[in-house]
């Protein structure tokens, strides 16, 4: 069952009908920003972020005197996790996907359920402009929400710390922000794909949440079990075996987007980290105790970044193709 593929420039691409995706995106973005969903997600993320930064700022302050020479003390706000409260970038790794899922799970099936899709596709726009516009709107909403959250959290942290970010810190925070947006865009693309494939919004949302739980909660557990099965670790285990076990677990976790995100943001927010891998005393002592420039930190995690963006693109391509091939009345 294939519908005609009305791609970008058709036979009749007169200037009159250009930019349909922009009209769709504008309407969708207005819907998103005015929705309770948007408010709830921003508040949830902001509260989690404030808790993380609050708990991180205490130890930083008390150590600040001795560490005042440490550059990029500001960045510790996002990475330090005392008192078992996850650090901000970890919180974002866990809760960020909810943002992506929240803006995508009913993108297409919502139109079907409200029976607005038939009306929408009968207007003079190309069919792909509908899904492109929806993706752009979701991405913009995510970028806005995340910018708001990070401004709140960063501002509060700077206030508590009494130290503002340096330009270098700002660059790293922006890089972190972009990686986070790409990571959440991946979840948005997944949610939109599910909204095309599944006719019911609830099914799409639950499926997306199941995938999210699988990676963020059970991912480590499953990777650990597999690693333990391959490299047995007990009291008599050698340090090599322990290390092999940990390496395998990490490699397995990198099959999921959250570990890729954690690798990338870990090196971006921590200029002194010289590797995305496991730090043992050996490698740490061999490393120079200096801070890397941003470009070098980026090159440490380049393939993680490529994988995140590639994953997002692949998922969106899947959603696009599925939507284009779908019958209006499917």
């Amino acid at each position, binding site marked *: *069952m*294939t*519908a*005609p593929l*009305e791609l970008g420039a*058709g*036979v*009749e691409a*007169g200037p*009159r*009908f250009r930019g*349909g995706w922009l*009209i*769709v995106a504008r*309407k969708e973005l207005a*819907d998103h920003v005015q929705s309770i969903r948007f408010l709830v997600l921003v508040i949830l993320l902001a509260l989690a972020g404030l808790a993380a930064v609050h708990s991180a700022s205490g130890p930083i302050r008390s150590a600040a005197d001795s560490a005042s020479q440490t550059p990029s003390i500001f960045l510790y706000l996002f990475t330090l996790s005392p008192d078992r409260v996850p650090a901000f970038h970890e919180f974002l790794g866990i809760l960020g996907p909810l943002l992506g899922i929240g803006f995508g799970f009913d993108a297409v099936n919502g139109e079907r359920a*409200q*029976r*607005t899709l*038939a*009306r*929408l*596709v*009968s*207007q*003079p*726009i*190309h069919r792909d402009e509908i899904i492109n516009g929806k993706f752009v709107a979701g991405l913009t909403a995510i970028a806005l929400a995340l910018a708001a959250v990070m401004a709140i959290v960063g501002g509060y942290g700077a206030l508590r710390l009494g130290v503002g970010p340096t330009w270098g810190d700002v660059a790293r925070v922006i890089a972190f922000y972009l990686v986070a947006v790409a990571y959440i865009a991946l979840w948005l693309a997944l949610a939109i794909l599910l909204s095309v494939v599944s006719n019911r919004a609830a099914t799409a949302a639950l499926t997306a949440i199941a995938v999210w739980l699988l990676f963020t909660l059970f991912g480590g557990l499953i990777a650990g079990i597999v690693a333990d099965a391959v490299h047995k670790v007990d009291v008599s285990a050698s340090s090599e075996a322990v290390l092999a076990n940990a390496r395998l677990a990490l490699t397995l976790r990198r099959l999921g987007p959250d570990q890729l995100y954690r690798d990338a943001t870990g090196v971006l927010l921590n200029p002194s980290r010289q590797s995305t891998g496991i730090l043992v005393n050996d490698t740490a002592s061999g490393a120079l105790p200096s801070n890397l420039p941003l470009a070098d930190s980026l090159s440490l995690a380049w393939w993680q970044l490529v994988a995140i963006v590639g994953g997002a693109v692949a998922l969106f391509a899947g959603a696009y193709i599925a939507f284009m091939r779908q*019958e*209006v*009345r499917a």
Partner: protein
Amino acid sequence: MEAADDTAPAIEARFLTKRYGDTTAVDRLSVEVQRGEVFGLLGPNGAGKTTTILMLLGLTEPTSGLARVDGLDPTRSPLLVKSRVGYLPDEVGFYEDLTAVQNLRYTAELNRLSKAVGAERIERVLDDVGLADAAGTKVGAFSRGMRQRLGVADALVKQPSILILDEPTVNIDPEGVRELLLAIERLRTEQGVTVLLSSHLLHQVQQVCDRIGIFVRGQLRACGTIDALADEIGDRWTFTVGIDGPGSCEEVLARVPGVTAVTRHEGRWRVQADGDVRPAIHDAVVAAGGRFTHLSRNEADLDAIYHRYFVNEGDSRDSAA
């Protein structure tokens, strides 16, 4: 770039066919709708009406055959076609959280109307369908009839040259149907809009249709004016006869020259003939000693056509909806 041809028929289909796997939803449909005409595509549910409409709009690709709307090929020039055709889908829906005006404004934007033109048109079409008072109300609070009328308004925002209405009278009360049909007639006479409407409720739409096409199981079984269709099925001369009298009335009636069939119908006799046989019936009944309680000629109507084409097919309704 293809250009619209204003001299071409408004809608033209030639051997238009759509197959889904083994089922043929539309089977070699050939029909022409002239400018300013109101054409009724009538058939039971699942006859392929909606599939035909989707092909005319370029929303689904024909398996074979040709479709032209204002001389344009909907598959090659979907945007041009969609900018000229107002479409009221079967079971129309709106964004529930937006008001009537906000919903229509989106449609106006998608049709690239400027803010001012859009606002003016929206006001006018809402007035046309009698929803001016509900303009600022969220659609979530609308009744079904109001949604249907808003759907018509939505289709009119782009000022279409062709209006395609898919089951427009379903779900609305008789008064709503009457208003809708009046609105369609007004559009045709005042603005010369061509209307293609599909329905399975013949009685509701027969009064506005210039011509109808009977569409059953993907095939156009008959096409023409209602009178012509009545002729075609030999139902032009049908009489209802009520007799209070002795003996076998059926035999008496059947023996009248020209009578082709006599059936019992709601306590009276339904007589089909090949001409006006009323004097002959009268004479025969009186001669047999009977007394009339009723004698009338049936109007040529869609009832018989409905029976003839739909009901006999009722058991074979397929799932190509």
